[in-house]
Every structure is written in C-alpha cells, then in structure tokens.
C-alpha cells in the first residue's frame, strides 16, 4: 500500500500542485479535516480557508477561496476557485480590501449584491486570520 497521498490542487485556469505528500489539511464547510493516505472515499464542499500540505517534515500553507474536495482511493483532489500562497501575501492590503468590502456591503441594495459581498467579506476575514496565524 502506498504510504504517500497523491494530492492535486486544481484551479479553473491550471493545475497548481500535483504530487505525493504525507498529509493535507483542508477547510470543509462542516469543519477542518485532514487527509492521510488510504482515507475513505469522501466528498465535501470547502469554505474559504487555509490548506496545509505536510510533506517530509515540511509544511506548505496555501489559501483557497471556496471549492470542493474529493478523496478517492487514487488520492485527494481539491478544485478551488482561487488559490494563493500564504507566504506571499501582503497582510496590509487585505485589511484595506476588507474595509472596502465592508463599506460596500453597508451600501449594497439588491439581494444579490449583498449575497456576493457577504461572501467576499467572509473570504477576506478568513484570509486575514490565516495570514495572521
């Protein structure tokens, strides 16, 4: 049996990561979950949050903006709308964006606008927490 987990992270534009790792932690809509090799088949939607990849003692932290995870005997696939490398994010820019998004939300009128902005605010809040952590 394989003692490594085949993991791929795919965004609409391209494949961002593909390879064998020890463990992946991801933010499911019903809570964070970790995937080790030989995990049972599992399918869940993701909320915005950090994805942590553990491989031979090294950890890589990425951030996904919503998406979907699929664990099969072949490995784990995450389909993410947007994925960022947490090490490369400028924390101050997020604060500004978050402030703007909150102001926009206060001004938003239509139901759809409010819905989309709420999602954006949730995303930016999660991103801020993840960067600070």
């Amino acid at each position, binding site marked *: 049996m394989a003692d490594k987990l085949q993991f791929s992270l795919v965004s*609409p*534009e391209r*494949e961002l990561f593909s390879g064998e790792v020890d463990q992946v932690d991801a933010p499911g809509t019903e809570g964070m979950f970790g995937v080790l090799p030989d995990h049972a088949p599992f399918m869940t*939607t993701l909320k915005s949050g950090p994805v942590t990849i553990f491989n031979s003692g090294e950890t890589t932290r990425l951030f996904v903006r919503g998406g*979907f995870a699929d664990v099969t005997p072949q490995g784990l696939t995450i*389909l993410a*709308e*947007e994925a960022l490398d947490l090490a490369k994010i400028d924390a101050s820019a997020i604060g500004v964006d978050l402030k703007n998004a909150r102001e926009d939300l206060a001004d938003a009128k239509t139901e759809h606008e409010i819905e989309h902005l709420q999602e954006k605010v949730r995303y930016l809040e999660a991103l801020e927490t993840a960067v600070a952590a």
Partner: protein
Amino acid sequence: MASLKDLRARISSVKSTQKITKAMQMVAAAKLKRAQEAAEASRPYAQRLAAVIGNLADSVGVGEGGPALLSGTGRDDVHLLVVLTAERGLCGGFNTNIVKIARLRIAELEAAGKTVKIITVGKKGNDSLKRDQGSKIIEHIDLRSVKNLSGKESAEIGTKITDLYEDGAFDIASLVYAEFKNVLVQKPMVQQLIPAIAPEDAPKVDLQGASYIYEPNEAEILEALLPRYLNTQILSALLEGAAGEQGARMTAMDNATRNAGDMIKSLNLTYNRARQAQITKELIEIISGAEAL
C-alpha cells in the same frame, strides 16, 4: 494610364501594408500559442468537475425538486443568448459568423413565439447586434482591458447569469461562441447552458468496494457545484473563442500578406512595362529628330 510616379507611390504603399499584415500575422501566431496553452491548462479542472457532476446528478436525480440549474424552470418562454465574440476586428469572418448564427437562432426562437434576451461579450458582436437587435440586449460585458482571461472573468459572467436566473429573468440560457477546431476552422455554435446538461459519460471512480461519505450531502454538494460548472463552461468557451480569434486573424493576415505580394508583383510588372515604353518613346523621338536634320 497611371504615371510612373503614381505607380511608385502605389507600390511603396502596398509594401508597407504588407509589412503590417505580416507583423500582425506573427503576433497572432504567438498569441494563438498562448491561448491554446491556456485552453489546455484549464482542461483538468473542467474534466474533474464534469465527472463529479455527472456522477452526482445520476444519484441525486434531475427531476422535479432537483437543483433549479439542472431541472430548469419548467417553462421555455424566455430565452437568453450569451454571445461571445472578439473585442477586435481584422480576423476574417470570425465575428460575422458568430453573429450570423446568433441572428439565425434569434429568428428561429421568435418564429416559435419565444421572447429573446441577449447578453453580449466582446465589442464586435455588440456593435453589430446593436443595430437590429438593440432592444433585446440586456447587458454588454466588456473584456477589452483584460489581458489574460482567467476564472475571474468567467465567474463574473456566470454570476450575472445565475443572478438573472434566480430572479426569473429567463428560462433557458445558451452560449453562442466559436468552437476552436483547428487554426483554420472555427465552428460557430450554440450550446445550452441552463438548464445545465449533466455530462452523460462521466468516468466512474473505482472506490475499491468502499462508498462515498458526503459532507453536507449529495444534493447540497451538487447545488454548490453547479454554478461552478457553469463558470467552467463559460471559461472554456471564452478560451476557445480567444484561441479561435487568433487563429482566424492569423489566417486572414496570411491571406492579406499573400494578396499584397501578388499585388506588388503585378504593379511592378506594370511599372516596368510603362518605364520601357517611355524609354522606347524617347528613343524614337531622338532618332526621328536626328533623321529629320
């Protein structure tokens, strides 16, 4: 008969046109390569998503009570056409062909007594549809400032469409775009977007005897995934359109360069003939002048 000076001016002007078309062809070739790579790179996501949707739709069922994006509104009175064209011209019949198909479809739907609404993406399609179908265009999406098409643009378009759908603005949505067959052939076509058609021949995953754990549950996952599926369809149409545009431009500019070459050749011939005729004429004048003395 044009004078020698006129001919010279004409030749040099055609030569500089040829230089421009040649340069445009080379730029289009380079851009085409990039556009093809982008389309290629977006495939894994689309394939995975299509497979998952296909499997989920099978087990959840698409009948009444299923997700609205799959089951439809139960009516087909109002149709929305999303027409994807290029932002720029000079690419042969590329834009014209897409608009032609769109017009055909509009006429067909109207003959059947349906209401048609249009969203245009790309300046060229908007310009030409505005003339005779202006009242039906409910929105125009401008991508001129976008250098590299990404999920962001398609998500923007997709969100707009799903919002309209949730508001009950239309019953059926279709995409009109040019499918990229190869560099020479782009086939304009109409593809139904909403209600979404779940991929039929989705590859089944071998679970090795185990069964899936779903969180929250199958129906909700499907509901969350459908808008994304819509977005990927739009993205792939956008990317194919972009590749097709460059392919069409490359072919058109290649033809233009060749035509300019032919023209230069024939102009040169006329020029040389006129020059020789003039020399002969001058000689005759000199000789007959000398004989008269």
